[in-house]
């Protein structure tokens, strides 16, 4: 795009900056104040003292465990997605079987099935196989509902691999498996990181499946922890906001260290 200044857009961008940043400022400044001080000063005021007690409280009330659980769920979901989606997309893009076309349509439709809609049978399914209140019981359905969007994204990437490359592989007598490992996977790195980011975010933000499929403290994930903190911390808004801030930290770290992959991954969702 041309770099000609656009004052209107610039002004709008700064207004939006205020809308985004003020709540974040309130959140951060609240977490460094005592409850009494926050109550007296009001949320928009500048803190007059500094304390880390709210973070200590949040962590000591079990947040560490919730983090660990969320990390396990996220890794499990990403692992399953990376295991299942690439072969599927490969088949969709390269197979000439009618079944593959039908399967692609199925996943296109699957995009429109909200997880809420099937939560009751999924609960009984998970309970019957003995995975209720078990993180694996959260991982499996969460991964399943991440499949449609990931499949569509990755299939898009794989279509960009030109036919000549496949032909070259075929000339060498490569089997589909070999072509998959040597050609398709290396050339789909962008798409793979996109679906990893996507499924990780879905798992990280997951709320409904953990809400219905777990109950005890040992399987509680961060999102549910926050939901419960709301009642547990009660009046302690700074403590609650410290927990909210903490819940952001791992993603923030991922953002700092893998900013490019994360942003590119998310952009990848939107077409080119």
């Amino acid at each position, binding site marked *: 795009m041309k770099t000609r200044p656009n004052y209107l857009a610039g002004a709008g961008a700064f207004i939006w900056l205020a809308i985004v940043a003020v709540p974040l400022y309130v959140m951060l400044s609240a977490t460094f104040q005592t409850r009494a001080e926050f109550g007296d000063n009001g949320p928009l005021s500048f803190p007059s003292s500094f304390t880390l007690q709210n973070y200590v409280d949040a962590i000591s009330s079990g947040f560490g465990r919730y983090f660990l659980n969320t990390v396990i769920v996220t890794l499990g979901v990403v692992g399953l997605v990376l295991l299942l989606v690439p072969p599927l997309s490969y088949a969709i893009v390269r197979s000439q079987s009618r079944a593959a076309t039908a399967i692609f349509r199925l996943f296109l439709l699957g995009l429109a099935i909200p997880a809420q809609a099937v939560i009751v049978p999924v609960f009984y*399914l998970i*309970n019957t196989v003995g995975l*209720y209140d078990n993180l*694996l019981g959260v*991982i*499996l359905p969460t991964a399943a509902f991440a499949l449609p969007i990931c499949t569509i994204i990755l299939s898009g990437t794989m279509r960009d691999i030109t036919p000549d490359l496949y032909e070259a592989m075929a000339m060498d007598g490569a089997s589909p498996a070999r072509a998959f490992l040597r050609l398709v996977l290396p050339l789909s790195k962008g798409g793979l990181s996109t679906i990893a980011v996507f499924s990780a975010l879905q798992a990280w933000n997951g709320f409904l499946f953990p809400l*219905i499929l777990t109950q005890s403290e040992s399987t509680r994930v961060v999102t549910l922890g926050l939901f419960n903190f709301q009642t547990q911390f*009660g009046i302690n808004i700074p403590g*609650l906001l410290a927990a909210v801030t903490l819940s952001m930290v791992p993603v923030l770290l991922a953002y700092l260290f893998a900013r490019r992959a994360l942003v590119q991954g998310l952009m990848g969702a939107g077409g080119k």
Partner: protein
Amino acid sequence: MNNHGWVARTIAGGAALALGLTMAGCSGESGASSRPENELHVAMYGDAGNVVEQKMIDAFNATSEVKIVLDKIPGGEYQSKLQTIMDTPTAPDIFFNWGGGSIKSFVDADLVLPLDDFIKEDPQLKDAFLPSVFETAVIDGKAYGIPMRGTQPVMLFNNSKVLADAGISNPPATWDELLEDVKILKDKGITPIALGAGDRWPTLMWFEYLYDRVAGEGLFQKALEGDTSVWESEESRKALGMLRELVDAGAFGTNFDSVKFTDGGSPALLASGKAGFELMGSWEYSTQQSNDATFAAEVLGYSEFPKIDGGKGNEDNLVGNTNNFYSVHKNTRYPEAARDFLKLMYSDQFVQEQVAIGNLPTTTNTEKFLDKAADPEYAKYQFNLVKEAPSFQLSWDQAYPPEATVTILTAVSQFFSGQIDEDGFIKAMQSL
């Protein structure tokens, strides 16, 4: 275990194999996937009071071969979780409840163990508790629950400093005095009564007391037994009229629908002096105490709900959570262990521990320990209220089966915010 429905079986049957294959690659995680031998699960309403339950369980486990595991389910989701797992393989062996309607549907589905045999062996399981309390968990003549934790009457709390500043010397003894106080506080720019209407159940408390004071405890009992015509009665309309008058007088301010008790909004209004009163269960005290112990001990005042002239209900009647109970699942593998655990509920140790964290157990020996309470004066006041009360009405949302809760809470909140009128409220209650 009872079978858990053909839908589940159909899905599970066809799916288990495929799932097994999928799972082969994943190792087991933490959590209870299948119940090991000698393990007994107690489903518990998760909150700050769990420390005592855990202590009792630790004491029990020290000597028992069957080990008890405390499953703390977050309070807000408790009833919903319980109902979904009750008739599945992951059902608890012992579960916390409020008696009455909260266990009725489980009893009807034959999922709860009658405790009469236990009581025959050990009469203390019944005799050690105040009879009025014990009755709450008796259904069709059979006992289904043993009281635990404590009783939680609803009282009118106040900020004594705010009242004193406004020249109000005593908490209101009558409805008219309450209306007067409302006017005085309002004129001073203070929200007269804090109400966490965002949670909806705090609003319900006002209905429970108004109906009890105006019509007596019989009206709600009749309604509960299925006589919905009582909602149209003259007393019912009178109670609704008085509530409307109170709301219209600005007693709760204008933004009560955006305030919650559970996120600390309404208690903070009272504590910060922005409001004069709050009608709340006895846990208001411990809530305030955990925020500011000095405020709870020195400024927080409490009184009975005011009496209403010309009302049919006794002025000493109470509403609230009569008590909490432990019930036993019919399919428990270890009924004897469950029985032995229940016996702890009237032990001196249990009562003492509960009293120390501000709960008020309703055993006959509770009075002995009141001096050791967190605030002896408050504990004694409460205990006497409960002992003297001719009737103690269980909260409506607990007295009705859980599926009625949404309707009741929606109706009371809509009535307060003016979205429905008296006829709308009557119609909603008659639909139950």
